[in-house]
Structures are given as structure tokens and as C-alpha cells.
């Protein structure tokens, strides 16, 4: 009994136990399934057309080529699409972080009439899926003459109920002593926001920023609705133009485009993944 207990309590080298190996093999199978589509994107992007269309299909290219990338830049204004994606996703992220954090500051730190009601309304609007407002939103945006412009893509998303709520929760957890000290020194509310709250909220801003950027970069329906000019498409929406109605799919160029679409996000993910994954786990962020 005591020996058994001692055995369970004693830390052992992870590879010493057979159960570690079983778990590791199970996890590797999972990783293989998860990675296969990503691998196929990367490998097909560098395959010559003849190999992409060959039977039987193979995983690895026999000859490596950059032709697919050349094709995609010929068939679509791809440099422009990349720029559009960066301006759209980056613009939404910067504006939303600014406006959301300002609003969150008021809700977390300023004791004003109606703050509770406002919070309830913001939480209620969290539940509205954007797909449900898309038709009248399009009419509104079209009325402003914004269709096919960055204004249409960015401005309706320049504030977001979720971001306000998320940041408010974070600001509430910051100690009040920080801003009260500044207040005694005669600092204005805006100064407290800028010099005390924001610097202390960097982890939350980073998480929300990455999340907003990834979501918008990847969004298909939004750019599909607000742009119909190829020059204003994003990478995500532009790639759907390649498949076309003919039914013949140019997989090589498509995968080259897909690889370009996911490279910036993969780089971002590698940089921030530890903190990002951890904060999703704790905040229930979606």
C-alpha cells in the first residue's frame, strides 16, 4: 500500500512509463490528421501542374517549382489583395482596440449615471450574429457610397461589443490604487487612461488584437458582401474567384494563394501562441 502510494507520488521521467508512449502516439495521430491539410497546401503550392493533375496522386513534389505563385499573381491582382487584407484586418484591429478600450475605461472606472444599463445593452448586443444584420447594413453602407472601399470594410467594425466587454473585465481587475494615485496628482481621466491603464493592460490588448486580426483576415462573408471589385477583394475572398463556375479547380495556384493567406497568421501565431492559447483558456474568448 505505502509502496504503491510512493510509486504514484514519485515524479518519474516521462519516457519511463509505457502510458506516456501510448499518449504520445495518440497525440501524434491527432497531429497528423490536423497537419495533413496544411501540409497538402504547402506541398501542392510548390508542385508543377502536371504533378498536381497526375494519377496516382503523391504527397511530395518530385520537382519543386514557383510557377503556381507566378500564375496566381497573373490571374488575380494578388499583391493588391495582400495589401487589402493587411489594411482591412490591421485597420479594424487598431481602431477597435482604441475605441473599445476607451469605452471599457468609462465602464470600468468612471462612476456615471446609466453605466449599468449601458453595460447590459452592450452584453445584449454581444448575442447578435453579424450575419443577421448584413442586409440592412449593406444598404446603409451603400447609402454612404462606401461599397468597394476600405471604409465599408473597416468602419462598421471599428468598435465591437465583445472587445469592450473583454477589456472592461480586464480593467476591473487592475488595482484602483494605480489610478487614484494619479488622480490625486491631478491627472485628467484621459491621462490616467493613457499613462496608467493602457500600459498595464498590454496583455489583454495583445490577445484581443491578435484575435481581431485573425478573425478579420480570415473572414469570407464580410468582404464578399461589401466588395465586388477584384481590386478591393481580400486574399480570403479573392481566392474564391479562382474556382469559378466552370468546375475545374486550378489546385496548384489555389494552394499557392492559400499558403500566402496563412503565412502571416502562422508567423503571428508562433510569436504569440503561448500567451494567446492561455488567455483563450481563461477568458472563454471566442
Amino acid at each position: 500500500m505505502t509502496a504503491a502510494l510512493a510509486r504514484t507520488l514519485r515524479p518519474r521521467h516521462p519516457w519511463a512509463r509505457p502510458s506516456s508512449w501510448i499518449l504520445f502516439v495518440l497525440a501524434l495521430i491527432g497531429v497528423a490528421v490536423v497537419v495533413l491539410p496544411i501540409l497538402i497546401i504547402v506541398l501542392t503550392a510548390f508542385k508543377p501542374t502536371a504533378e498536381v493533375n497526375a494519377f496516382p496522386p503523391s504527397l511530395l513534389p518530385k520537382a519543386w517549382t514557383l510557377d503556381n505563385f507566378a500564375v496566381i499573381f497573373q490571374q488575380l491582382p494578388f499583391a493588391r489583395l495582400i495589401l487589402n487584407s493587411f489594411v482591412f484586418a490591421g485597420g479594424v484591429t487598431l481602431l477597435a482596440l482604441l475605441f473599445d478600450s476607451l469605452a471599457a475605461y468609462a465602464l470600468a472606472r468612471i462612476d456615471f449615471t446609466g453605466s449599468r444599463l449601458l453595460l447590459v445593452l452592450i452584453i445584449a448586443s454581444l448575442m447578435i450574429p453579424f450575419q443577421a444584420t448584413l442586409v440592412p447594413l449593406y444598404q446603409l453602407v451603400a447609402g454612404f457610397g462606401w461599397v468597394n472601399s476600405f471604409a465599408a470594410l473597416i468602419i462598421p467594425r471599428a468598435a465591437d461589443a465583445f472587445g469592450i466587454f473583454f477589456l472592461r473585465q480586464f480593467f476591473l481587475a487592475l488595482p484602483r490604487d494605480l489610478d487614484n494615485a494619479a488622480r490625486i496628482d491631478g491627472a485628467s481621466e484621459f491621462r490616467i487612461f493613457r499613462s496608467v491603464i493602457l500600459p498595464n493592460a498590454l496583455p489583454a490588448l495583445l490577445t484581443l488584437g491578435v484575435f481581431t486580426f485573425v478573425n478579420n483576415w480570415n473572414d469570407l462573408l464580410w468582404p464578399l458582401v461589401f466588395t465586388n471589385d477584384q481590386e478591393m477583394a481580400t486574399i480570403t475572398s479573392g481566392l474564391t474567384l479562382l474556382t469559378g463556375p466552370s468546375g475545374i479547380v486550378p489546385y496548384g495556384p489555389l494552394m499557392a494563394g492559400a499558403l500566402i493567406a496563412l503565412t502571416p497568421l502562422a508567423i503571428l501565431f508562433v510569436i504569440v501562441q503561448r500567451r494567446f492559447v492561455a488567455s483563450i483558456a481563461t477568458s472563454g474568448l471566442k
Partner: protein
Amino acid sequence: MTTQVGAVRRDYRAPRSLSDPRPLGRGLLRTLTALCFLAPALTILILFVASPMLAALRTSFFSSSGFGPETFVGGANYARIFQDPLLVKAMGNTAIYAALFTPVAVVVALLVALVVADERLPFRGLLRSALFLPFIVSLAVAAFAWGFLLDPQLGLLNYWLRGLGIRLGNVLQDPVLAMPTVVLVAVWKSFGFYMVVFVAGLQDIPRSLYEAARVDGAGALRRFRSVTLPLLNNTLTFVVIFALIAALQAFDQIYVLTQGGPLHATDTVVTEIYQSGFKELDLGIASALSYVLLGATLLLSLIQFALGSRREKDLAS
């Protein structure tokens, strides 16, 4: 986007003490200051969320093409979406999609979470990150990759499965298999997110409980049923509701892979909103469908909210 709305804390108000530098009786000034901070975000939310929501409600009672005159039709749009066979089918498909996606995504996520949360697993952090990777891939790009893997002639997965004696044929043109295929793409993309939430839940379970169960002679299955599941119950409920809400919004991979076909087998509420609102310009129908989507989402969110506040009470007592 939704969140654990049930988890809203009671407003924290610092006690007004002598050290509080703000003098009393300056409420108006504070309200004005707050308004300045709130103005940009509120302008955006009122103009681009609240007003379209109300406009859609109005349009759902009109016959409208977006141009020219609109006619008031009462509840005719709502009557039509519950009678028109294609629209009924789209709503039914959304329910089928949710009924396939939710259990599969949740079970896969939970099983994977059990593996990667286990302290005996080497390289836990790295494996977790690898499994989370699809989360950053767009559904559209994921759909391209899966479409290629499953291509009846060129697809590698199709070829490998044929080697095992499984002939899939053209799954995306198959009225029965098309829906499970678009669900598969969504499961691939999103299970990692649910996995991370589960891992957090699993790590909150005190290890002493497992040790106690082990000492009592409980096997692995018994420990899962009697310790893990009951203590993971809240996380599980929230993940299920997240997954249901996400399932209601299915669009991207369907647009890429099947365009709602074959024979409308993968038409969903959102593909129909897009179709009627932007292709057929039947805005009344699109708006009525939008409200069906909104109603279903609100219902799920309220359940989540109710469960969340019940949990808060449980924790408080």
C-alpha cells in the same frame, strides 16, 4: 462572437473613503467625461449594429427589393419561410448541421483534451499548439485544402482510402455525404479551440480527487465518469452552447465547396440570407430569415446566461 456572459461580475465599486480625491456633487461632469470616452464606440455600435437590427425587423414585414417602393405584407414573409420548401429545407439543414457538428466537435475536442492535459504526456505544450493550429486557418482556406484532399480524381485522401477498400466517390456532389463533409471541415478548424477550453477545465480539477479515486480502486473509465465528467460539467455545457451558436452561422466552407448544393443539400440559413439578400434581392425574406437566426442565437445565449448565473450562485453559496 459570444462570450461567457454569465460570468459578468457584479460591478465593483470602491468604497467612497476620505482618500477618494473626487469631490461629491460632480456627477454631471463625470457623466460628460464618460460620454467622451464612450462616444466613438457607441456611435459605431448604434449606427452599424443597433440600427441595422431595427431596420431588418421593419423590412421583415415588407416586400422589398432594396430599390423602388416597399409594400407592407404583415407576417407574410415569416409565413413564407415556414412554407417555402427550399427555405424550410435550409432551416432543417442548419439543424442537421448543428446536430452533426456539435457532438462530433465536442467529443473530439474532449478526447484530445484528455490526452494533451495528461501530465504523463511528453512535449505537451508543443503538441497542444500543433493541435490548435487549424484555428488560425480560415474556413475558406481549410475548405480548399479538404476539397483537394477529397477530389474524386486528384485527391490524396480519396486515393489512400481506395487503397483501404473504401470508395468515397465525389462526396461533395453526393446529396447524403456533402453535409457530413462540410461539417468535417468545420470540426477540423474549430475543435482545437474547444480543446483549449477543455484543457483549462481539466486543469482546474484537483489532482487529489484522482488520487483518492485511485486509492479506492477506481479504474481509468470509472475515474473519468465519476470525477472528470461531473467536475467538467460546466465547461462542457458552455462548449456545447458555443458550438451550437457557431453551427447556426455556417457559411464559409459551404460557399467554397458546394454553394449550397447538391440539390440544396447544404443550403443553410446563412447561405439563404446571402442568396435572398444579395442575389435574389428579396430583402423581406432575407430579413425574416435574419430574425429566425437572431431568435435561435438569443435563445441559446439566454440558456447560457441562465446556466452561468446559476453557477455563480452555486459558487457563492
